[in-house]
């Protein structure tokens, strides 16, 4: 482990740019900490923090100059790896058939994600499984993902809706990064403890002024991160949860949620693991030119479950149930992990503050099954 002083952190951004990366990182925009192009350390949310509760979010000034003292915001990295809109191909009429022009993958940007939190690493790992590790590969995703560099940042404080500890995904990054930083501000010092996670990370660090970390400095970071872990905003008891939810398919709580849920789909849009999309075919007026576009979709829309002959899920009750049981139950069978990483976004960004941890707990506590958790 190494130490990089605050004054040398710019060197890392410069090194990434020098390696041809488009650096993306957190920045303050529209009253939130969002992800945008990052050219300089000065663009980071220095001295800002966020306050998150169910259905509410705000940023506040801190008394210090911390660069990373907030948690995840409205955006997630899926916005870059799995864009909300993508042209899959274009087709031009040629004689009796069509000439197809597939979406280009050769000219895609090489991203460096700067400031990826531990839960987000877990979310990216989940989307990797879905988009490129299975039988079918999403070429666009794979190209972007394979060329991306990940600079993780450990959470030295946790947010009001975070529950990564319950999901075993944080607050400390364990794998899946090229470099991982922990911000340390104490005794007049302001530096970063850096862990190297890959040969790429190692070569990047070579270009940045750094030194070996002393044992005391490592212990200090362990202490900071342990303290964060103890302050989790929310908890979720995952013990036998997949089974508990399966056994409670007709639980009255689903109807109770349906009375509060707007079916607005915000939870699925902000979730870093939700991966559903739909395709829309468009033509020009003559019908000679056609395009197929993919865009994010959600299990909360009516069209999502429309098939020949009808619709499988017409009520909010069945839609919310589908969403939550997929995240916390069926996902395990399907992909070998839960579909939730405990980032809390769906709780914060639900306009009416529906809380997945509270709902799952309510079902468990009032379980209709013989198996009680």
């Amino acid at each position, binding site marked *: 482990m190494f130490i990089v002083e605050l004054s040398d952190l710019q060197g890392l951004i410069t090194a990434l740019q020098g390696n041809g990366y488009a650096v993306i990182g957190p920045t303050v*925009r*529209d*009253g*939130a900490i*969002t992800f945008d192009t990052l050219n300089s350390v000065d663009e980071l949310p220095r001295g800002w923090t966020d306050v998150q509760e169910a*259905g*509410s*979010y*705000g940023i506040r000034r801190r008394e210090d100059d911390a660069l990373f003292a907030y948690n995840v915001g*409205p*955006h997630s990295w899926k*916005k870059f790896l799995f864009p*909300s*809109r993508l042209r899959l191909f274009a087709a031009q009429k040629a004689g009796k058939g069509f000439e197809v022009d597939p979406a280009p993958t050769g000219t895609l940007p090489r991203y460096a994600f700067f400031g990826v939190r531990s839960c987000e690493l877990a979310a990216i790992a989940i989307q990797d499984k879905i988009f490129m590790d299975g039988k079918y590969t999403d070429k666009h995703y794979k190209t972007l993902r394979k060329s991306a560099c990940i600079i993780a940042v450990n959470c030295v404080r946790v947010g009001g809706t975070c529950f990564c500890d319950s999901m075993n995904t944080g607050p400390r990054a364990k794998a899946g990064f090229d470099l991982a930083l922990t911000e340390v501000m104490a005794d007049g010092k302001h530096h970063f403890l850096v862990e190297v996670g890959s040969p790429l990370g190692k070569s990047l660090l070579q270009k940045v002024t750094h030194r070996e970390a002393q044992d005391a400095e490592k212990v200090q970071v362990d202490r900071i991160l342990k303290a964060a872990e103890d302050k989790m905003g929310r908890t979720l008891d995952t013990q036998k949860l997949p089974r508990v939810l399966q056994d409670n398919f007709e639980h009255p709580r689903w109807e109770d949620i*349906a*009375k*509060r*849920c*707007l*079916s*607005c*789909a*915000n939870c699925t*849009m*902000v979730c870093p693991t939700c991966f559903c999309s739909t395709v*829309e*075919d*468009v*033509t*020009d*007026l*003559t*019908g000679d030119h056609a395009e197929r576009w993919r*865009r*994010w979709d*959600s299990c*909360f*829309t*009516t*069209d999502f479950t429309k098939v020949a002959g009808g619709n499988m899920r*017409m*009520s*909010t009750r069945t839609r919310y149930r589908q969403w939550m049981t997929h995240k916390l139950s069926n996902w395990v069978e399907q992909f070998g992990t839960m579909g939730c990483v405990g980032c809390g976004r769906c709780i*914060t*960004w*639900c*306009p*009416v*503050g529906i809380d997945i941890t509270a709902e799952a707990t309510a079902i468990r506590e009032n379980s209709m099954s013989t198996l009680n958790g």
Partner: protein
Amino acid sequence: MPAKRPKVAVFKFASCDGCQLSLLDAEDALLAVAGAVEIANFAEASRRVVKPPYDIVLVEGSITTPHDVERIREIRKMGKVLITIGACATAGGIQALRNWKDVKDFTRLVYASPEYISTLDRSMPVGSYVHVDFELRGCPINKNQLLEVVNAALNKRKPNIPTHSVCMECKLRGNVCVMVAKQIPCLGPVTQVGCGAICPSYNRGCYGCFGPMENTNPPPLSRQFRAMGKERHDIMLMYRGFNAYAEAFRKESEAHEK
């Protein structure tokens, strides 16, 4: 290009013409449309009138008089496909605010000789009187959506007109939610997408111009508005806009009358 161009006619009832103007506002695309179809009746654009039948009839405006009722029935017979455009035609429009009052009070107030005024009690959507093949929402409609519907009809494909929430569009654009991050009451979660989430993109709450979305559930949103400090009366007024008489909004505003 098909040899025989489909005939498109535009008719207007009680409305401000804004939706028809969206078609004229389509500029370049309008020329392409004009090339692909025969404009058979479009008073805002041309005096030329071609006799029915028409392949596509676009209807703007709400039905407010006994004469309107007769006329919309005639127009229905003229068109193979009837598409209503805008909040007036699909929900009764802003003029449907009179549906909560006695219309005679208005005619007495406005006209010197109210006895000559023949009007219905209520301003109603076209769909209350005749079968409608497709409803294009909005106050005004979105010109791209209008082109999409015409385009889809010409190419015999399904129009891409989603009926889900404005929120989804907001998120697709990468907006920061004004309701959650700024405590600005927003009708986006109960409103159908179509405008491209313009208001939230400019830091304002959604006004509900495109009417209730599919499977809409306003009561919890209203409760949230209350929790944010909105008075019941203000909430009533929020739903009583351009789509006031659309059922879900009507019920929700009535629930906040007292």
